[in-house]
């Protein structure tokens, strides 16, 4: 069965930024969609799916992973059966085509009803999506996540702006940490979001203090439904163009 011939897709193109395609995955409960998604998972993924004890996380994993398979197969013009996934030593997944590393970079994130898949022919990338939760005690997390300068900006915001501000910076930092690919080894408070992005620009570039030689493109992908961000390793030509 060809994944992309399936009549009822639950994923749609969302944005393309600097050669990175971002796909939105609809994670609303759908028995039909979930049944179709499960059929596309390999034995390893089926086993992982069974380890999720709760229905919501199980559904989100199945729908996102099947959508990821579909878009990778579309990009690489391969069959679902040729595709498997493995993990780096830091737990970041990568794709194998007929058992060999595939020429594609990707990253996946999901929160509540929304999933995002980012993929590009090469370069490290990370994506994060979060449904904003107004019940969350943001003040409790501020000094763990934001730099001193960002904390001062946060303190000057109120109400819904405060919620949007925090989630925007959280997703930017989470996307960067995922793109970096070494899990918790980055200290989020040492990542300084570009001032122009704090003030409303959607895109920017930055260097991590731990990796000053690498420039990262970051993009605020937030909508009224969710906060989201994309981080991708920038090529020198792309930086000059900016």
């Amino acid at each position, binding site marked *: 069965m060809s994944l992309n011939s399936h009549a009822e897709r639950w994923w749609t193109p969302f944005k393309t930024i600097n050669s990175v395609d971002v796909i939105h995955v609809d994670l609303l409960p759908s028995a039909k969609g979930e049944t179709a998604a499960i059929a596309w998972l390999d034995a390893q993924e089926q086993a992982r799916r069974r*380890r*999720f*004890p*709760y229905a*919501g*996380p199980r559904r*989100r994993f199945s729908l996102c992973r099947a959508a990821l398979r579909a878009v990778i197969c579309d990009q690489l013009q391969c069959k679902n059966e040729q595709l498997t996934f493995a993990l780096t030593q830091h737990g970041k997944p990568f794709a194998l085509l007929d058992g060999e590393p595939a020429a594609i970079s990707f990253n996946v994130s999901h*929160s509540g009803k929304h999933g995002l898949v980012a993929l590009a022919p090469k370069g490290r990338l990370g994506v994060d999506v*979060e449904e904003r939760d107004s019940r*969350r*005690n943001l003040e*409790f*997390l501020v000094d*763990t*996540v934001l730099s001193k300068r960002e904390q001062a900006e946060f303190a000057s915001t109120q109400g819904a702006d405060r919620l949007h501000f925090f989630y925007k910076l*959280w997703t930017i930092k*989470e996307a960067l940490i995922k793109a970096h690919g070494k*899990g*918790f*080894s*980055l*200290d989020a408070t040492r990542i300084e979001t570009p001032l122009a992005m704090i003030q409303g620009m959607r895109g920017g570039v930055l260097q991590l203090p731990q990796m000053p030689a690498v420039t990262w493109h970051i993009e605020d992908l937030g909508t009224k439904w969710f906060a989201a961000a994309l981080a991708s390793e920038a090529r020198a030509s792309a930086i000059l163009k900016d």
Partner: protein
Amino acid sequence: MYMASTEERVRSLVADNLEVDGKSLGSSVDLEASLVDLGVSSMDIVSFGKVVAQEFNVTFTREHCPTLNNLRELIEFLDSQAA
């Protein structure tokens, strides 16, 4: 005087602070499961780490952070800090 064990205290913190899809994980949570596999968000895991650090008066370095994903390993870490 009764002193709650580390496991009991961690289970209580889980019940009070961690939820999936709006429902508390409860105190009978499987200690062997990873929080990610239970469906806990990364923001909740970071927040939970801070709650645990305050409750047990410990500091988590970045190297300790993966420990937070597994409650059994977290309890062993907390016991090692208290020893």
